[in-house]
């Protein structure tokens, strides 16, 4: 059985029960609900990052935080808090995502820049656009959009539904479509994939656009959820997006991705911080323990893969 994602879910379940152990079971549904709400944002950016990392060594998108900020800032500014503008706002956020993805890939392809450099440099430009467009003012989302993003359906948060639907689409595309096979093949061996007639540059371009669109959706939802776009709203999603991919059991060397693991890892990343906060761990202890636990899970997940 080759199921590296099981470790992320196991760790999430452990962190969940450890937190509840403190309250002797009280607050279980509140904690689960909060984990699903906040985990959704990490899961959405994580899915995008997973696709890019699957492209193979050296492929990563470091412009995710800036893309989130820019998409959210422009969308919320255009909506201006007016009711009935939610779809227009979503359209703007998606357009920003596509534009950012195309720009990132253009830098990588035309200038032959390594993706790390290209996306990092471009992210400074996107962040500056966000600053320039609205000078950091937090504009409230329209009430209907705020209600949607903080609301629930069938007991689950709406943002979690969005994250789950995106995860299902990603899984189907990866596992059942030609494009998904092309992506995995490109990630396993770019040269072999090219010689086999796979349009590898098309695959790379579409992957960089997809990650930017996912980041834009996450930014749009997060700003609607938390009452406005802030200039530093994406900051913690840079490392988060990479961490959930690695903890989720996807290969950091590319060519092997894992959709369920991303969601498990996203829940875990929220729950482990909640657990350590609940136990009263200081910031230093919390960071050390979080790091140690992540290393532990990655080792567990990868040694399992080797045995299998």
């Amino acid at each position, binding site marked *: 059985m080759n199921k590296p994602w099981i470790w992320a879910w196991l760790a999430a379940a452990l962190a969940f029960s450890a937190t509840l152990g403190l*309250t002797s079971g009280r607050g279980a549904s509140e904690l689960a609900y909060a984990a699903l709400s906040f985990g959704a944002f990490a899961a959405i950016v994580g899915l995008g990052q997973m696709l890019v990392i699957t492209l193979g060594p050296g492929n990563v998108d470091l412009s995710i935080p800036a893309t989130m900020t820019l998409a959210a800032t422009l969308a919320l500014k255009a909506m201006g808090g007016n009711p009935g503008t939610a779809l227009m706002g979503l359209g703007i956020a998606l357009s920003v995502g596509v534009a950012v993805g195309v720009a990132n890939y253009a830098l990588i392809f035309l200038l032959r820049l390594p993706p790390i450099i290209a996306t990092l440099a471009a992210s400074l430009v996107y962040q500056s656009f966000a600053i320039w467009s609205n000078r950091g003012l937090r504009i409230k989302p329209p009430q209907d959009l705020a209600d949607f993003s903080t609301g629930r359906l069938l007991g689950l948060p709406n943002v979690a539904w969005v994250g789950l639907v995106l995860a299902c689409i990603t899984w189907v595309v990866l596992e059942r479509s030609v494009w998904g096979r092309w992506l995995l093949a490109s990630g396993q061996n770019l040269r072999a994939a090219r010689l086999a007639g796979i349009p590898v540059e098309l695959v790379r371009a579409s992957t960089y656009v997809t990650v930017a669109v996912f980041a834009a959706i996450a930014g749009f939802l997060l700003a609607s959820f938390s*009452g406005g776009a*802030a200039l*530093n709203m994406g900051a913690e999603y840079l490392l988060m997006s990479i961490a959930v991919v690695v903890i989720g059991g996807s290969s950091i060397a590319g060519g092997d991705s894992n959709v369920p693991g991303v969601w498990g890892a996203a829940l875990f990343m929220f729950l482990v911080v909640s657990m350590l906060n609940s136990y009263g761990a200081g*910031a230093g202890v919390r960071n050390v323990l979080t790091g140690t636990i992540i290393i532990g899970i990655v080792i567990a997940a990868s040694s399992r893969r080797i045995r299998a």
Partner: protein
Amino acid sequence: MNISRMLLGAAGIAMTAGLAHADAHSGDTSEMRIALSNNYAGNSWRQAMLQTWKESTAQAVADGVVAAADAYTTSENQATEQAAQIQNMILQGYDAIVLNAASPTALNGAVKEACDAGVIVVSFDGIVTEPCAYRIAVDFAQMGREQVEYLATRLADGGNLLEIRGLAGVFVDDEISKGIHEGVDNNDQFEIVGSVHGDWAQDVAQKAVAGILPSLPEVVGVVTQGGDGYGTAQAFEAAGRDTPLIVLGNRQDELQWWAEQRDANGYETLSLSIAPGVASLAFWVAQQVLAGEEVPQDLTVPFLKITQADLDEALASTPEGSVANVSYFLEDAQQVIADAE
């Protein structure tokens, strides 16, 4: 102007006392150039700070007080990058550098070079420890203590408190938290039952509070550091808990929420933070030093405090999505200098 008066009142300063010194700037600074070295621009507080700098200094330049007052911000919030920026400013021949530093110690070398080259360095908000620089410091510990003192006046029976901290590892976070814990030690009817890092950001605070709430008993009050009160309130609401007494930090969304709660159910609280306009105070202090005034190395800037009575006025004067602000003028700088002597 009224906010300005409020602020001065908060620090226990009488406005009139400053006027006696108003004609004391003797030296001519009209040929001199002042630069702002700023380490970070990525949040609404810093944006408001830069905006105030621009407005105050444009007026000063137009009035012929100084020849130029240019603002520079580093892109990566790195001490090394800011040190290089300061060295460039020395080479460009600025007469004074107003500095919001990325680190209290890492820039000391560059600051010393500036002093040795005869450049006046005035640090504010993010201050530097180099003795030759001037420091416009905020008594952050006092800010923490005042929050608990206020809660003690409102909640006579005491109870459980939740502490929202700032960015881990930053001096300001340690200081405010220290003040809060001192306050709690002096008021033993309170107990801090939980502490999370909100990074001075509403969305981060909301996430952290949502994660710790299920494990907490009833919370009667929340002590904060600014920029985290609205997110905290949202997390309490989402968890279906009664809204505790949350001390706010002057952000417009916090004030807006406060006004809504007040109209709905008579919610009453206190909001306090540092006005981003402190940059304009630093500008005038630098101008005073250049003018040859006797200025102590260590100055203290008062908080901007908003009470129930001032709420409507503060809300009306704060741009949507920004932070309550006040511009400082020459008289304010002279007052702060006089107080420190």
